[in-house]
């Protein structure tokens, strides 16, 4: 169709392709923002670690249990954002998507933070294992006698046991969670490998323009997607669902995934809106691209609602105590978390649904960027809603926000600042688009015809 479009001289199209692809439009000054980026990365990581440190020292009205919880909210939230972008990159390759040639580089950049985002989660896990379970009560020998934990022990401890092999009595000394740690290492390897490979292949194509690199990326994405799906779902089970070891939901992996893609798409939109706002990518990432990314954001706010309601619905209907406890604790009329749950229903679904439904919102980078920022906020609150109540649960502590609220805020803001710093450092390091992607023409001419 390109010949026809050129023939018709319809204003856009590749008549002025060279002009669109001039270096000033599709690249930032190499090494720009390096100092600022690294600085913010360090500050963000330091702010997060201060929370953990204060918890360990018992400073600022903070318990270690609370500190680990606050630290996990932000770090796992950012991990989900990066996983979301890894998914987008893999999905773009798998579906041979043409329109994404001008936006995929930024998804790769965000996904490239995965190894660091994963490293940021580790201190919480190390603290948990070292202190034998503050939040992860299944690590605590006091719970080794629990019938439900005994039934699930292999998932955490295999090949070790938390019962005496002779007498079958629960052990009183902490057992090292071998299988859990092995899985964590495996997630790190998978995510590092996939994010690195995807970024590397696309950068190589910037240099050589070799079409075979696209085919290789697509092949890697084919089996990489399977690994991504399994690792993301099980990371959701391991790091969030296991906060209450009696609770179980086979839908939890999809629930974590849905939030990840929602917030990941939002971060991608924000990054591109910011680049457009600074005068870059003019005519390269157009309102048509924002329109389609807006559709993705819309789709995943619906998907999140669909999954999280379905999860709740089945548990509500079947009324099994070990399942309903999760919701009862968060939605009981006396629960301090009830308001947050209702806010999430409105803020994470109903409001974004009605607003992003409007075509004009999806097509305007400023409006869509505002919705994306909102999406990141409610995504963090969603994870906060999962993690934070567990800080007060179980040991008779008075539930509520009063004590150490500063840590909750810092735990969310710190990892986000670190991500921002990384992007400021990373984005100028390569061309802002995949400039020699075989589908580049298609992306430049991309339009929504309806």
């Amino acid at each position, binding site marked *: 169709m390109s010949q026809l479009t050129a023939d*018709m001289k*319809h204003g856009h199209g590749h008549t002025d392709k060279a002009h669109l692809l001039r270096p000033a439009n599709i690249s930032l000054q190499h090494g720009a923002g390096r100092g600022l980026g690294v600085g913010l990365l360090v500050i963000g990581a330091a702010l997060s670690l201060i929370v953990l440190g204060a918890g360990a020292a018992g400073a600022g009205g903070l318990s270690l249990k609370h500190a680990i919880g606050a630290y996990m909210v932000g770090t796992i939230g950012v991990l989900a954002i990066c996983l979301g972008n890894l998914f987008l990159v893999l999905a773009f390759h798998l579906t041979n998507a043409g329109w994404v040639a001008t936006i995929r580089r930024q998804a790769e950049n965000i996904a490239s933070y995965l190894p660091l985002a994963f490293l940021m989660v580790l201190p919480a896990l190390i603290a948990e294992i070292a202190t034998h379970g503050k939040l992860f009560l299944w690590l605590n020998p006091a719970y080794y006698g629990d019938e439900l934990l005994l039934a699930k022990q292999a998932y955490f401890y295999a090949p070790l046991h938390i019962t005496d092999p002779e007498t079958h009595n629960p052990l009183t000394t902490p057992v090292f969670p071998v299988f859990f740690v092995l899985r964590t290492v495996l997630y790190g390897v998978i995510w590092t490998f996939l994010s690195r490979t995807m970024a590397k292949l696309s950068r190589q194509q910037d240099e050589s323009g070799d079409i075979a690199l696209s085919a290789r990326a697509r092949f890697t994405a084919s089996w990489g997607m399977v690994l991504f799906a399994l690792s993301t779902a099980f990371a959701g089970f391991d790091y969030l669902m296991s906060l209450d070891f009696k609770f179980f939901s086979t839908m939890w992996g999809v629930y974590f995934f849905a939030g990840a893609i929602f917030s990941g798409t939002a971060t991608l939109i924000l990054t591109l809106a910011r680049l457009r706002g600074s005068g870059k990518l003019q005519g390269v990432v157009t309102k048509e691209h924002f329109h389609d990314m807006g559709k993705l954001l819309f789709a995943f706010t619906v998907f999140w609602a669909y999954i999280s309601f379905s999860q709740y*619905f089945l548990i509500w209907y079947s009324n099994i105590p070990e399942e309903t406890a999760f919701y009862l604790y968060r939605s009981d009329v006396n629960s301090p978390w009830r308001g947050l749950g209702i806010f999430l229903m409105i803020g994470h679904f109903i409001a974004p649904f009605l607003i992003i439904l409007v075509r004009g919102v999806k097509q305007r980078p400023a409006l869509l960027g505002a919705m994306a920022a909102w999406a990141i906020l409610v995504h963090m609150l969603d994870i906060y809603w999962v993690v934070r109540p567990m800080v007060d649960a179980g040991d008779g502590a008075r539930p509520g926000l009063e004590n150490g609220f500063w840590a909750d805020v810092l735990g969310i803001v710190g990892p986000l600042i670190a991500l921002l710093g990384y992007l400021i450092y990373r984005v100028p390091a390569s061309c802002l688009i995949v400039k020699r992607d075989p589908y580049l023409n298609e992306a430049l001419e991309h339009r929504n015809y309806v």
Partner: protein
Amino acid sequence: MAASNRIYVTEANEPIYGILAEFATPASVCHAAEAVRDAGYHKWDTFTPFPIHGMEEAMGVKRTKLPMLVAAGGFTGVGLAYLMQWWMSAVDYQMVTQGKPYHSWQAFVPITFELGILFSAFTAIIGMLALNGLPRWNHPLFKKERFLSSSDDRFFVCIEAGDTKFDPDRTRALLEKAGATSIELVEE
């Protein structure tokens, strides 16, 4: 015909439906569409064997109202479904199910969702047909042997005689100028 007080007839006294012009290439039919659009015609259409990107703009077609109709249909479905279930379960025939309250919004969600989808889908398909003036039994253009190639390798523009700007001579001249390879009158 109703839009205009002038009624055009052929020499055989047949009322005229419009003027059909044939074009050889997608580009030429697109340019012709732009010319017809710029001349201010409203009751006209183009016929091509495949969708031509940019044709909506060339024809000056306005965006469809269908999304608004679908939204209205969908939200009506959602509202009606919830109201129906509330009335049946909590008002008209109260029955304790699984120890849940009569008015359990959780239980109402699936049907509310499904009816929202159903009403949206019905509004979309029925609205689409209605806005397109479908179904209809026949079309005057089908009488033209030449028009058959519109599903093969030829491109057509047809301007209806019912258009207020229609004038047999000037409309024909416009299409000739736009590069039509053949022009003929179509009887009603």
